[in-house]
């Protein structure tokens, strides 16, 4: 499989062409957070509705490349309706999948291996790691979600 095919797997192109959970939520009660990728101009808005320790609903607006859009879509499908603690665990696993490169640069320690089975469809994004510049595309939605949760102290 060439790098390019590994990057643009069918699942990714599918989520790009037909993004899940696209749209907005009324704020309040939902909470809205914005994220930018200043390098390429991608902008994302994540709407989250958290109550009773559960991420009840999530919507995604904004624009970006196939990687950032499909990653956002995959993320929304993976976290919607989940307890916040599970959401954090998913975020952690996903970020570990993506940060191989950055953490190698920084602290020169090998990150723990990620259990790809647990990630489900999200594992389709692992081809991104071979394209360091695109990691920022893939993590944009996730960083924005993390920020939103922390603003809610959730």
């Amino acid at each position: 499989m060439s790098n390019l095919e590994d990057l643009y797997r069918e699942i990714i192109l599918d989520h790009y062409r037909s993004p899940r959970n696209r749209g907005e939520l009324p704020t309040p009660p939902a909470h809205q957070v914005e994220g930018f990728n200043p390098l390429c101009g991608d902008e994302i808005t994540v709407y989250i509705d958290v109550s009773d320790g559960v991420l009840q609903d999530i919507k995604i607006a904004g624009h970006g490349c196939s990687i950032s859009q499909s990653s956002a879509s995959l993320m929304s499908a993976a976290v919607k309706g989940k307890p916040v603690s599970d959401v954090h665990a998913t975020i952690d696993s996903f970020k570990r999948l993506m940060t191989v490169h950055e953490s190698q640069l920084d602290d020169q320690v090998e990150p723990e291996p990620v259990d790809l089975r647990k990630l489900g469809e999200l594992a389709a994004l692992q081809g991104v790691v071979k394209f360091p510049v695109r990691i920022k595309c893939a993590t944009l939605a996730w960083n924005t979600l993390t920020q939103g949760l922390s603003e809610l102290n959730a």
Partner: protein
Amino acid sequence: MSSYDAQRVRADVPLLRRVIDGHPITYLDSASTALTPRPVIEAMSRYYETRHANVHRGVYTTAEEATASYEGARVAAGVFINARHPAQEIVFTKNTTESFNLLAKSWGRANLTSSDAIVLSEMEHHANLIPWFQLRDEIGFSIRFLPVGEDFRLDLGPLDQLLAGAKLLSVSAMSNVLGTINPVATLSAAAHAAGALIAVDAAQSVAHGVTDVQETDVDFLCFSAHKMMGPTGIGVFYAKRDIIANMPPFLGGGGMIADVRLDGYTPATGVERFEAGTPMIAEAVGLHAALRYLDNLGMSAIAEHERALTADALGRLRERFDGRVRVIGPADVHLRGGVLSLDVAGVHPHDVAQVLDQHGVCVRPGHHCAKPLMRRFDLPATARASFGAYSLTTDTDVLLDGLDHVLELFG
């Protein structure tokens, strides 16, 4: 294409021998940074090998030689843009961006107050925006914007009105997104008629045609060596002698002083007032070699060569893709340079560039540090292909084939 020989230039550029994933490199990102020819690389190596020393303060032989090299580069930079007093009107900075910071924070801070106004344009690079925003946030003058029309050109209609009472017009000579070449002489005349000065961002234009600050009567001009086949790490700030003489210092440190006491300091009087610390000596040598290289090619010949490439590419893009690939910028090659911002229907520029990379094609996706302009045309980004002195129509061939693949994959 006259006697201009781009193949000879290619032979001088080692990077063009790179092979990417089995494909010879197709470098179409000269608007970001130009590739470096061997004479420039060698001039810097030779400098380090034979006469590296700190400048200005040594009396020994290599220190004199290094100083002569550095000051010689200053004069050459001045001569290249036809400055009247090359040795007294050129300051070396690290890039165009620092040049604009110098302009805003030295000249601007000394000359602007909360009741003043300056005029920028909607097509400016962040380098000619943020320094002004920073200064405005500090002292509170107003910033007016010359609009960009639907034809991707500056709309000169409101120019005189915008200039009324303004102290400065600061605009790019050529847009790094649209390719639009702006009418510097006209803008300069209008600014001066209104009693304003004019600053020109020549980062994009300087390597692609003749620059003449006297003919266009420009007060300030900024550009970077790395966009003109020179090294990274050095830029140029030009200001007319009478103006620069009255500009207060910018960065402080060694080499920019006349005297220092524990209670204060007296700045030096010449251009060294703006060059604090050990300067970019090898980089000045590299810039000088690049200027010589460009001079040998001839700036008019380069312009003509790139105009032909641009006309060819515009025509073929139009024919082959029939609207599925739009070029964001003027269609008339006499109004523009060789910067082609592509908008591929339904495909994000980042993905366009990624697929092209697989063909060895280097184009740049993004907002190109011109976010207000992107918003003006409601584009999140473009995939920008841009030509240099070494580009060929075969580069365009590979680009077009790559775009076919893009459309196939995402179509």
